[in-house]
């Protein structure tokens, strides 16, 4: 490692002020700090600092997504062979899935990080780690058959319009990964909805409808016919976006996030409670067949679990106060089920519900903080006790 350090120290002056590659300072800095934690010491305030930094934080989130990713890779292969009525062994499925999923991940990271590096260069600040997470989230919420150019366009849109125009990581209002997903949905509806896209190179004869689509179809036909059992949906043996199908794999990620304290357990739990509440309410009303789908099915269908664990908990776009987080999460769960059941045009409500609440999160916080201010003012007006 010493040799590497020496080499870095040797070329470093060229990237500093007055050096040949001064303009590439941010890029050099990104690589240097990736390899070595910087030697900067504290100068003001606390002389010691916690060992955690943004790189560590973001890598924990990426690690938490790995179970969902690995399952997703396998499931892409599994669903493909299933639709063709072929028997394939475990490794064949993984291999097929890898061929489908890895290029999407690569495209997402290359596009997003490329833009991040350019912006860091132009703005003369360090490259932010936020995209390490967004770059993994985007592949996990797209269908396996998505054309790669669409991934690139959506990623670029999300990073530039969703994040950089607001000032970069920490300043954005909407979750970048969901911005990418929403962009795809509204720009290319044919390629990201319907029954064709959820299974990679699906055989034409095979239905391939997701449980959500089947439930939505029930509104017209009068009964909901699921082709998968509840446990299939829980374990994830269903068609869907790459990373969203297995509630179990997502739960493993949830545990990692909650134990490390990096993802807000408060938000996750309130999203679930909100979803169950609305699902239960609709069960009681029971006007059409979708409303009759048992309320707990909503937790394992579509992107509910994935959104609750990885999207709603994004600290930048969620509510920032403890009370605000509970309201924010609960409303996400509630809106998701509401949109799913009452909006026949698009059965997946999670994306829209989170984006909607992203917009309202500052308002929620405003009222929470306002109540603290009122309490303080009231205290000041209270006569002093003798």
């Amino acid at each position, binding site marked *: 490692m010493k040799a590497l350090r020496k080499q870095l120290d040797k070329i470093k002056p060229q990237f500093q002020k007055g050096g040949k590659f001064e303009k590439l300072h941010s890029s050099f800095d990104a690589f240097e700090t990736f390899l070595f*934690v910087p030697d900067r010491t504290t100068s003001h305030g606390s002389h*010691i600092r916690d060992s955690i930094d943004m790189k*560590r934080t973001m890598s924990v989130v990426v690690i938490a997504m790995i179970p969902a990713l690995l399952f997703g890779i396998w499931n892409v292969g599994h669903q493909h062979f299933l639709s063709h009525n072929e028997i394939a062994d475990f490794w064949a499925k993984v291999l097929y899935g890898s061929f489908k999923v890895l290029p999407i991940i690569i495209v997402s990271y290359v596009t997003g990080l490329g833009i991040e590096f350019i912006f860091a260069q132009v703005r003369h600040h360090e490259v932010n780690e936020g995209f390490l997470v967004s770059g993994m989230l985007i592949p996990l919420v797209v269908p396996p058959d998505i054309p790669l150019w669409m991934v690139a366009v959506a990623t670029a849109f999300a990073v530039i319009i969703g994040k950089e125009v607001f000032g970069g*990581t920490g300043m954005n209002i909407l979750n970048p990964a969901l911005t990418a997903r929403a962009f795809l949905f509204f720009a290319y509806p044919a390629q990201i909805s319907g029954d064709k896209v959820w299974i990679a190179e699906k055989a034409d004869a095979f239905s391939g409808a997701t449980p959500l689509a089947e439930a939505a179809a029930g509104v017209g036909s009068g009964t909901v016919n699921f082709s998968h059992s509840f446990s299939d949906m829980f374990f994830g043996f269903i068609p869907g976006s790459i990373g969203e199908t297995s509630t179990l794999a997502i739960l493993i990620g949830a545990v990692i996030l909650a134990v490390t304290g990096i993802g807000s357990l408060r938000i996750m739990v309130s999203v679930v409670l909100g979803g169950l509440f609305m699902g239960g309410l609709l069960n009681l009303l029971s006007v059409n067949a979708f409303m009759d789908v048992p309320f707990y099915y909503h937790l394992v269908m579509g992107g509910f679990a994935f959104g609750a664990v990885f999207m709603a908990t994004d600290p930048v776009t969620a509510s920032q106060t403890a009370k605000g987080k509970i309201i924010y999460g609960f409303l996400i769960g509630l809106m998701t089920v509401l949109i799913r059941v009452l909006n026949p045009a698009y059965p997946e409500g999670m994306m829209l519900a989170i984006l909607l609440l992203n917009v309202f999160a500052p308002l929620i916080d405003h009222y929470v903080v306002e109540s603290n201010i009122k309490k303080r003012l009231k205290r000041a007006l209270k006569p002093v006790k003798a």
Partner: protein
Amino acid sequence: MSKTITLSKGLNIRLKGDAEKTLREFTALHFAVKPTDFIGVFPRMLVKEGDIVKAGTPLFIDKHRENICFPSPVSGTVSEIKRGDKRVLLEVRIEPDGKNEQERFGTADPASLTKAEITEKLLKSGLWSLIRQRPYGIIANPDQTPKAIHISAFDTAPLAPDYDFIVKGKGELFQTGLDALAKLTDNKVHLNIGNNTSAKEFLNSRNVDITTFKGPHPAGNVGIQIHHIDPINKGDIVWFAGVQDVITIGNLFKQGVYNSEIILALVGSEVVKTGYYKTRRGACIGKLIEGNIKEGNVRYITGNVLTGTQIRPDSFTGYYDSAVTVIPEGNYHEFLGWALPGLDKLSFSRSFPSWLMPGKKYTVDTNLHGGERAFVMTGQFEKVLPMDIYPLQLLKAILVEDIDLMENLGIYEVEPEDFALCEFIDTSKTEIQTILRKGLETMRKEMS
């Protein structure tokens, strides 16, 4: 029957190098009073280099409040008046003559004096400078009467000195100091003790309201205690003083002199033999650390690792400080440090395995452990700030200089030291204490 307040939020940072319970003495070669220890004080010199002074002779006064002066801790010669950039006065150095001559201010029983007489005596001796006020952390205004006076009798900061040990045998002086302070307020003097406090010097104190605090750091911070006993509202003034400051004030009334003796804890992982040392305020640490520091690049701090000030190895302890901490510097590159498991790394987050070993003590250096970023994580500061305050929102209000919002969010109730843990755990490596001080200074200028 004293009441107990239990706080659950906070964090005890477990560092190696706690002070051994032995009391030694060390004779410093120089002493100094540093105007930079006093917030908002603009010094005007009363002595010049070469002047002979006694212990208690005023060295300089505050230009803005000329009745507040700052006394020499020892008798001797003014050896140097050190100035920095733009001729800012940094240190007034005294070379002791060993005779220990003292200015006489006359003994008196505080119980028989009026508020005006006590104020007068404290101002004349310069010991008024030991009484500070909240908000802003400045020296108290003798023309005001505070809502209350608070004394924290325990310190929960990392490697903090044990005041039970320091106060031993000084119960009478401490009580006299409390009696003097009690005359300065129409309300109460609060003595806030920890649930582990056992010194009878504290427990048997009279003329005060004793409250017990239980919980991790920052439960020992006077600001946290004030917040839970009787919070500061807009317009309120609360005074506070340290345990050793009260003892010094007690000495003034008992013996009629400025006895600058204090007990200093020498702590930190880089100290060979830690312990308590008898010395005087503003002592040069040169002799203290001589032959007692491990090899390597180290940082000397007067105060604790969270709120203290970095000093050179030949520099002086702070006016209000009761500890000198020595920790390793962290100016090295660490290969993939953010990715490695990090078994020996201290972190409040559970992304390092250290949370599985709750009893382990750590050597922590001054490395920043990462680059500065925008605020990203939320809900972290709240876990280490046991106050009904929204820390992130308050910091953002300061950054945009929104005075009304700062006031509404409770800036009067906090000092940088209360936010030190937020700064420690911050993933974005923001300089939170600096921001908070800036906000407080903005408010102070706005309100004056």
